[in-house]
């Protein structure tokens, strides 16, 4: 739909190709070093990469959802969340409604997955769902839907498979190398047999060795670079879909103030989340080893979008924050949608007392989690809702507030 997707894709493709070259280089080095046959190493690298790719392509989303212990919800489980996802689906022009998942975790985070827009899912932690008002939730969900719409999910999955393959190969190669050196195995015997090969061979071998050590690091840096770029674009698209950048900005602010770390995240899945689950305080903009741009910067850019909600406005705000810098969104892409106005806040956010609203939301979410865990609710006459775990076997229960005996 919006043309920037295509032009941004080109830059990403270049970075992916760079990673691919790294993979081939390491395969070459392994082949040369261990099998005396560079082509064999290349084939090995490609086979490992191919297998991992197939797994990621067909089962990647299920694996990701399973390891983050996400659970699918139905519209009636949490109408507000489901509605917000549907609203953003409409705003983005996505054709199929993504599945909605909840992760029972007090940490604040959300992610999107799925190999194409027709098979996508959005997951959000119960902690985040509790913390955000409707506008903020909309901003976060729009950011995730933008990842789906811009096909970042597939791109990041392919990249992480590439990265994974490079890391695995380098890891085993270096183990073999150490092992070989200790026992006088293949590596050394090979070297002595090819004594006559001269200095050139040793240099090539040293280069190969350096490559095995450096490739995983380089691949990781490229991976992070791709990831950061996609985050900016998703933020810009979020503002465009909601026409209300402040929603995402204030959601990010809440995310920034939280110190709880997500239990089920790991380094490989980090770029899928809306903020880096391993974030440390005081990270700089130029930090190369981060999957996400610093939150404070993302918030500042969103807040600087005074003129409108189009991608041009985001780009302008980006330039403003990085005085005199280059924009993040390619020029050819920005003319696609004309002037786009901003809208005002949802009245809910203004009128409701923040305290009361927060309590209400917390109750809503905890009820949802209890329902998902098959708890039964029994209304007591005094207005209390009694929640019974599935393991509760007695036929009656005493209300802790009024002392009435209720039948289960």
């Amino acid at each position: 739909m919006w043309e920037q997707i295509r032009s941004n894709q080109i830059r990403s493709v270049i970075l992916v190709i760079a990673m691919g070259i790294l993979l081939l280089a390491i395969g070459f080095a392994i082949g040369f070093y261990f099998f005396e046959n560079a082509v064999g190493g290349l084939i090995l690298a490609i086979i490992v990469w191919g297998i991992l790719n197939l797994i990621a392509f067909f089962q990647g989303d299920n694996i990701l959802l399973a390891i983050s212990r996400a659970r699918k919800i139905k519209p009636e489980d949490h109408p507000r969340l489901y509605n917000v996802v549907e609203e953003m689906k409409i705003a983005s022009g996505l054709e199929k409604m993504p599945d909605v998942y909840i992760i029972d975790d007090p940490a604040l985070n959300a992610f999107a997955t799925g190999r194409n827009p027709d098979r996508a899912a959005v997951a959000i932690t119960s902690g985040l769902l509790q913390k955000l008002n409707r506008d903020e939730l909309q901003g976060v969900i729009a950011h995730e839907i933008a990842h789906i719409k811009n096909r970042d999910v597939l791109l990041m999955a392919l990249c992480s498979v590439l990265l994974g393959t490079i890391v695995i190969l380098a890891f085993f190669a270096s183990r073999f190398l150490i092992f070989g050196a200790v026992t006088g195995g293949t590596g050394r015997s090979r070297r002595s047999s090819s004594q006559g090969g001269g200095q050139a061979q040793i240099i090539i071998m040293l280069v190969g060795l350096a490559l095995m050590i450096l490739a995983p690091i380089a691949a990781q840096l490229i991976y992070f670079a791709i990831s950061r770029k996609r985050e900016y674009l998703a933020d810009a698209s979020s503002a465009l879909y909601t026409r209300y950048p402040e929603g995402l900005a204030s959601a990010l602010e809440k995310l920034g103030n939280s110190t709880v770390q997500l239990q089920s995240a790991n380094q490989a899945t980090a770029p899928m989340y809306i903020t880096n689950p391993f974030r440390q305080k005081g990270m700089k903009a130029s930090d190369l080893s981060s999957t996400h741009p610093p939150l404070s910067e993302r918030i500042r850019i969103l807040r600087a979008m005074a003129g409108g909600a189009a991608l041009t406005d985001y780009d302008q705000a980006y330039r403003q924050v990085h005085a005199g810098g280059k924009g993040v969104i390619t020029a050819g892409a920005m003319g696609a949608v004309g002037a786009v106005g901003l809208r005002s806040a949802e009245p809910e956010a203004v009128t409701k007392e923040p305290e009361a609203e927060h309590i209400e939301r917390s109750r809503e979410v905890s009820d949802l989690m209890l329902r998902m865990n098959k708890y039964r609710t029994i209304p007591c006459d005094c207005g209390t809702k009694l929640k019974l775990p599935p393991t509760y076997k007695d036929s009656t229960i005493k209300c802790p507030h009024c002392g009435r005996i209720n039948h289960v």
Partner: protein
Amino acid sequence: MIAVYVIIGIVVISIFMLIVTYNGLVGFRNQVRNAWAQIDVQLKRRYDLIPNLVETVRGYMSHERETLEAVTNARNLAQQISSAGAGERGKAEGELSSALSRLLAVAENYPDLKANQNFLALQEELTSTENKISFSRQYYNDSVLRYNNKTQQFPSNVIAGMFRFQPDEFFEVAAAEEREAPKVSFA
């Protein structure tokens, strides 16, 4: 001989351009139609929700008959002309939106109503439907903008003229005050 090749080349290229542009126009037009269908779904959903809302609310706010009637009338009117074009329909839907927001503003004064679970569920549905209407309108208008640009800009306008691709109407709501989503809010 060279001249013949040049002519053949030009003809082939222009046929190719024609096909690409034509298909592009059809794609954009279908996107507009699809976007329109999306709005339609949401507007229908609103027609369905309103009688429920009026039923739920009636018992609590019997002295607000006028407000309730205004909503019902606006709904019926909007439903009647639901086969009209975007321009006319926008006006009726705008009126419905403002009648609805008046009703919901009045409901603010009835604490009992705000404690009613049924009403709260309806309120969430209605808030979301209003949002969906405005988001699908946003998407529709973006699609129309792109389609219209294509039909009016050179060189695609030549092909648009040849095959009668008409520019489409934007979906605008009636008055300036209704440009925002109605204030559906119950503190």
